């Protein structure tokens, strides 16, 4: 076990304690550490919701909500240190896998080996990426801490999911210390969750971690919607003439544009033009419910979803100039669905090194063959 305290001894007053007890300082340290992890997105705001007792010692509880910029993180720590805080809930966001620093990306992907029933083929992937289609990813995590909920005891405790520092976990329950709950949505990434927990576990051996279980009874792996780092492989083309290249590929290779059909767009059918996949129901987006970014894309598209290659190129260039869109937003809005060798794949664009690149996202099984076909018809691959 490991514990520490900070402060100098002062004569005459016997030993002294900080009003912020070590458990809270430890929690602050854990939260600071989570925030320092390279997978946390520093461009996103942090939401905090907390309950505190009122100005007297009665049971009056006041609930407050605040939003802070990432760089204002210190203000949140000050709130947490306050002894009157009974519980709090924080929402933070992780970085899209395509935006990870290379070293972190390598570490994250290597965690796939710890995944129950991991796909062995994953390790031979060349440039894996998640699906750019709208129903796939969820990068939000939330942190719940309650300082007054001591209902859980060792006696009724049953370990679930992925466990770290089990002895510390039981010790903390036995001593009625606090627990920190890290939550994530069904579309979260297993490797991210494992990364965060294993990092915390290694750095804070005095903190017990129970990974919990998902709705399918496993640790994220079983969930229908969990985000897969290996959905597609990226094939990036060097061309700067997007429209002409698209026309050339569609003429020479076995590739068809697809559009979504049905009430919710779960089904697909072939069509003759490119269709912006993630703007499937843009004409039904209600201005009062959508965010600033969605309003902008709605205005730019004007409800139009089907594009000729030339129109698509114009659209891509137009949205590349919107400062509010980061590179992930850009790719998200540019994405079209295409069928390649009977498989649903994506045609999209990325912004890197100050320019726009045309990119295919294809399933692993057809990547090698499709690359060869592209090269054989004179397409240059990055």
């Amino acid at each position: 076990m490991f514990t520490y305290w900070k402060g100098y001894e002062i004569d005459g007053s016997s030993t002294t304690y900080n009003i912020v007890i070590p458990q809270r300082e430890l929690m602050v340290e854990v939260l600071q550490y989570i925030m320092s992890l390279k997978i946390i997105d520093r461009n996103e705001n942090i939401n905090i919701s907390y309950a505190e007792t009122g100005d007297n010692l009665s049971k009056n509880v006041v609930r407050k909500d605040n939003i802070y910029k990432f760089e204002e993180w210190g203000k949140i720590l000050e709130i947490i240190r306050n002894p009157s805080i009974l519980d709090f809930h924080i929402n933070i966001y992780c970085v899209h896998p395509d935006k990870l620093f290379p070293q972190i990306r390598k570490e994250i992907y290597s965690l796939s080996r710890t995944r129950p029933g991991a796909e062995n083929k994953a390790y031979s992937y060349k440039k894996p990426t998640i699906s750019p289609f709208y129903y796939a990813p969820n990068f939000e995590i939330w942190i719940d801490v309650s300082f007054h909920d001591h209902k859980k005891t060792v006696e009724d405790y049953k370990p679930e999911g992925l466990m770290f520092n089990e002895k510390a976990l039981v010790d903390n329950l036995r001593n009625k210390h606090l627990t920190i709950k890290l939550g994530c949505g069904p579309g979260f990434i297993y490797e991210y969750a494992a990364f965060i927990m294993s990092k915390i576990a290694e750095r804070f051996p005095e903190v017990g971690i129970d990974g919990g279980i998902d709705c399918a009874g496993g640790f994220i792996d079983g969930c229908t919607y969990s985000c897969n780092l290996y959905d597609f492989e990226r094939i990036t083309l060097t061309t700067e003439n997007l429209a002409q290249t698209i026309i050339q590929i569609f003429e020479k290779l076995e590739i068809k544009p697809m559009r979504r059909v049905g009430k919710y767009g779960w089904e697909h059918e072939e069509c003759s033009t490119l269709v912006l996949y993630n703007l499937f129901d843009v004409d039904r987006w209600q201005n009062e419910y959508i965010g600033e970014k969605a309003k902008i894309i709605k205005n730019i598209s004007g409800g139009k979803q089907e594009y000729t290659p030339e129109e698509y190129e114009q659209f891509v260039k137009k949205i590349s100039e919107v400062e509010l869109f980061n590179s992930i937003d850009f790719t998200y809005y540019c994405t079209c669905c295409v069928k390649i060798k009977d498989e649903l794949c994506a045609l999209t664009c990325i912004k890197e090194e100050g320019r726009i690149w045309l990119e295919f996202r294809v399933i692993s099984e057809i990547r090698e063959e499709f690359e060869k076909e592209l090269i054989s018809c004179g397409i240059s691959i990055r």
Partner: protein
Amino acid sequence: MIYRAEPYTLMIFNADNGITAAISGNELYSLKEYLKTGIQNEFISRLINLGLISSDMSEYETEKLLDEIDRTEKVKAPLRSFAVPESIHIDITAVCPLKCTQCYKSNSQNVEMSFEKFSCLIEQAKNLGVFQIALGGGEPLVVKGLAKFVKKVTSCGMACTITSSGYGLTVELLEQLKKSGVNHIQISLNGSTKEINSRSRDGFDEAISALNILAESSVPFGINWVARMDNVYDFENVVAYVKSLKADNINILRYKQSVREDYWKNVLNKDAFNYLVTTIKKVKGIKIKIDSAFSNILCQLYGNQVNSVNCGCGAGRRFMMIDPWGRFKPCSHLSLVSEEQDIQKYWINSPDLENLRQGEEFIQGDCKKCSYLMACRGCRAICEQIYNDINAGDNNCPVFIEKGRI
């Protein structure tokens, strides 16, 4: 850095940042592996970040630390205590030019600890692995050559703090103390105005002058504020003042019986206590510290989250005291005096300390019936003064909750 073996636990203290750590079990094994192989995991990075180990230890330092880790399997400690004191409070003088009505000591006596005696004690402390020496008095700033006393402590790797009324602090003296490596200076102040302060303390102007000098320096400092009926509603003003000085902390002390005052007139009643707790909760932007005699404040604030590790009196368990005559005591406020001259023998064999360590079994009155007995145990010195029994219950406690009710 000081490394010290406790039973199955390695203690580490960094005098520069005041962090004390205890490492045991798998984490100790992890540290041992790092020392042997140099392989650094996240936990080791955290220890380095906290300043508890160095990333570039010499071979000699590494070997010494490994030996100390091995010693954790052999060393023994008294009941509920460290094997040796974590800190020692030393009153280096009984002389004080002020006449504070709340002072718990009898009239100023012309007694000062010689430097030779002090040096001998510090050598003992160093050899045992004591982490901190807290200097007090009397008024320590009137001791001639005080910087030499401080230097003696810091040169042995221990932290040195001074508690003072502020009387006699000058820019020159502070510069000497700073050069000697003083880690922290605490100034006593009981009110935001001279009128409020003078209800219990003398020397308001001297305290303010000292605080102003400290505020201009880089020496960390704070104030000791004794909570009393005649100043408790001034607490927020004191907080605002101390924050304006950019002090490190406010240390809230429980009022102890004075030879010149009626204890019951000045001790906080329940309403005043609750007011103080409520006000503490609102304080932001400065560290609040609590005298261990006020452990019931922590119980009130945190309930079951407090335990014997982060709460309760540490007299005889974590620290001891030495008076200007060189006599050993569990704390400044208890009358129990020993003529033993060997710190280790006193710590291991003293029946007074043994008695304090068995408080959980021996304490009577409300404390015995209280849910917080194991974490708090009240103030034994106050019980000794009021009931003439160190195991009496610290009755009339505003936080008392009968066992089984929480």
